[in-house]
């Protein structure tokens, strides 16, 4: 897939400036600032209810949230003005904390629709059936996703681990520039965690970036972050290197809460 390169802003892939967002009148994000450059891995950690999932959903364009202030630049584009589907085409991918089951829609039709929508967006013809199946096979291998799952309805009857692997499979197919992994480690046993993290690492490059949202240091043993941010009460209250995650693991979140 060819991308149009209109990256003008000091080699930033994502630039979030003072982002505010609310749901049903309740403000959840209270001024988020975050800069991500190509090739970087950022971890966002924080206690429950601090706004981690909200941040990922607002970036992906979930209509349930209202953006009340701030701006987001995504490789030179005004991200917040784009529809969720155009954000996807432009290279943003959200791996859902709770992937949605869609009975009656087969994985194959789902992925074909997604892939061809993206191709159409870039003025390309739909992929041939043969090429599509070949691509599916290739990408399935990255997360060891069973062919049987691929022929079923989207996420229907998948185990927790299979759902998360399916998310990374979709990510592999869509080749995003920025992947946001929202608690991809939750509900995974250690083998599934290794497979999922291995998949993410295989997809890493100098051009694409990853935001890992997690509660635990554990995932960061597999996906090494360049930066660790602590989100608390709708703001990023601390940023550091990988050592910050270790410190959190040791001290818990209370000292953060007390300091803020």
């Amino acid at each position, binding site marked *: 897939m060819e991308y149009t390169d209109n990256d003008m802003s000091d080699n930033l892939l994502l630039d979030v400036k003072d982002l505010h967002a609310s749901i049903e009148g309740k403000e959840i994000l209270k001024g988020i600032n975050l800069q991500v450059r190509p090739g970087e891995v950022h971890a966002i950690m924080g206690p429950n209810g601090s706004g981690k999932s909200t941040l990922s959903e607002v970036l992906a364009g*979930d209509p349930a949230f209202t953006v009340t202030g701030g701006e987001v630049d995504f490789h030179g584009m005004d991200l917040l003005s784009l529809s969720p589907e155009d954000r996807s085409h432009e290279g943003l991918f959200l791996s859902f904390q709770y992937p949605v089951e*869609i009975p*009656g829609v087969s994985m194959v039709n789902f992925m074909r629709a997604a892939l061809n929508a993206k191709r159409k967006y870039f003025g390309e013809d739909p992929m041939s059936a043969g090429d599509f199946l070949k691509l599916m096979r290739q990408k399935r291998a990255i997360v060891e996703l069973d062919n049987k799952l691929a022929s079923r309805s989207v996420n229907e009857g998948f185990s927790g681990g299979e759902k998360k692997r399916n998310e990374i499979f979709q990510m592999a197919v869509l080749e995003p520039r920025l992947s946001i992994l929202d608690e991809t480690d939750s509900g995974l046993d250690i083998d599934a965690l290794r497979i999922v993290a291995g998949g993410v690492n295989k997809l890493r490059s100098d051009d694409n970036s990853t935001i890992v949202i997690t509660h635990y240091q554990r995932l960061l043993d597999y996906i090494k972050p360049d930066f660790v941010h602590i989100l608390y009460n709708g703001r990023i209250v601390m940023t550091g290197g990988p050592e910050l995650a270790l410190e959190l693991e040791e001290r818990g979140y209370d000292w953060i809460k007390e300091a803020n």
Partner: protein
Amino acid sequence: MSSLQQYIDLYRDNHEALDRGSAPLLNAMRPAALKALEGARLPDTCDERSQYTSVEQMFAPDYGVNIARVNIPVDIAATFACNLPNLSTLMGIVVNDFFTPTSTLVNRLPQGVIFDSLRKVATEHPDIIEKYLNKIAPQTDSGVALNTLMMQDGVVIYVPQHVELAKPLQLVNIFSSPTPLMAARRLLIILEDGAKADVVVCDHTQDDAQQYLASQVTEISLGRDASLGLYTLEEASLRTSRYAQTYVKQHDNSRLNHHYAALATGVTRNEFTVDLIGEHAESLLTGMAIGMDREHIDCNTAINHRVARCHSNQVFRYVMGGTSEGVFDGGIVVTPEAPYTVAYQSNRNVLATAEARMHSKPRLEIYNDEVKCSHGATIGQLNEEALFYMRSRGIPAAEARVMLMQAFMADVIDTVGLESLRDRLRHLVEMRFSGQAATCRRCSEPTDN
């Protein structure tokens, strides 16, 4: 005054002409029908079983009736321009109420099988007509009596004992008239013991701007071990009204798989009455409705378990948009004589707009303790979470909605026994949900006419 009166008057003034255009055996049934209509009226909103649909109002306007049997030309190629792709059928066409076999039909029907004009069969095989016509539908019912009073022709499908039809039969109903028209349509389907057939029926209109009204009575008798797949597709127009009454009698170990799809209509009232009178009979009744504009679609079912060890299942799905209104009134009766009955019912509905309406009413009357029965009804919206999930993967909102609505219909379409018809239904449903007219007109394959 009931809207029946204009038809009673019409009959009194024109009964000789009416009789001339029909067959003596059919004419002999009219006096009893007339008697049944005296003081009667059609179902109305004050009747419990027709709470949301006034059949009286459907019949109130002044439609013409083609009693003199003036030949109305119809451009079949324009109205029904396609065959079922990959499905070779033996086809008969009814224009208003005139039956016309296709050339292939005449030559290729197996020995003893009848797929022909009711008027003709009444003369050539009076034994069949005397045995079955108006013996399955209740003659005292006002809708049936009206149809009997006005019918001049119709269609008979007769499959003798142990004959299994390799090819599906297809009946194409077309409305065509320069002025508003009412047609009394009749369909009699007889499968003798051990017979097997698939029948596809589709309703079309020649001119979407014209007003049409169909009074349609279908009687079905399934002998012991007989098996019928009956698939009805309604692809009419907003100005078409249809009052369709279907009565089925199933003998021992017979199988019925009846599917009804409302793809386009104005006002439709369907009544399905199935009497399970032989043990181990199985009845599957499925339906899907896609409501748009101001369409009104009412399916009223009554499955009567009259003997032991029968199995019935009803699955109905509606997606209602625009200002359309849907009704599902699903009846199951288990009589004291029917222990070990298994009867299921499921009706799920999606309201796609704030103005659309859906009424769902399961009616179970169980007079026996040894039964396994269940029913479920839901009315809701498309899953917003699923919609966002799909959009986040790049699938445009409109396309995602179509996929979700199609998925909602998937389990009903899967019950259809003919694979090529399933494919066709998926395609028609997709077109309909994409906002296109779901008609056969867009297909390129010509008929053999």
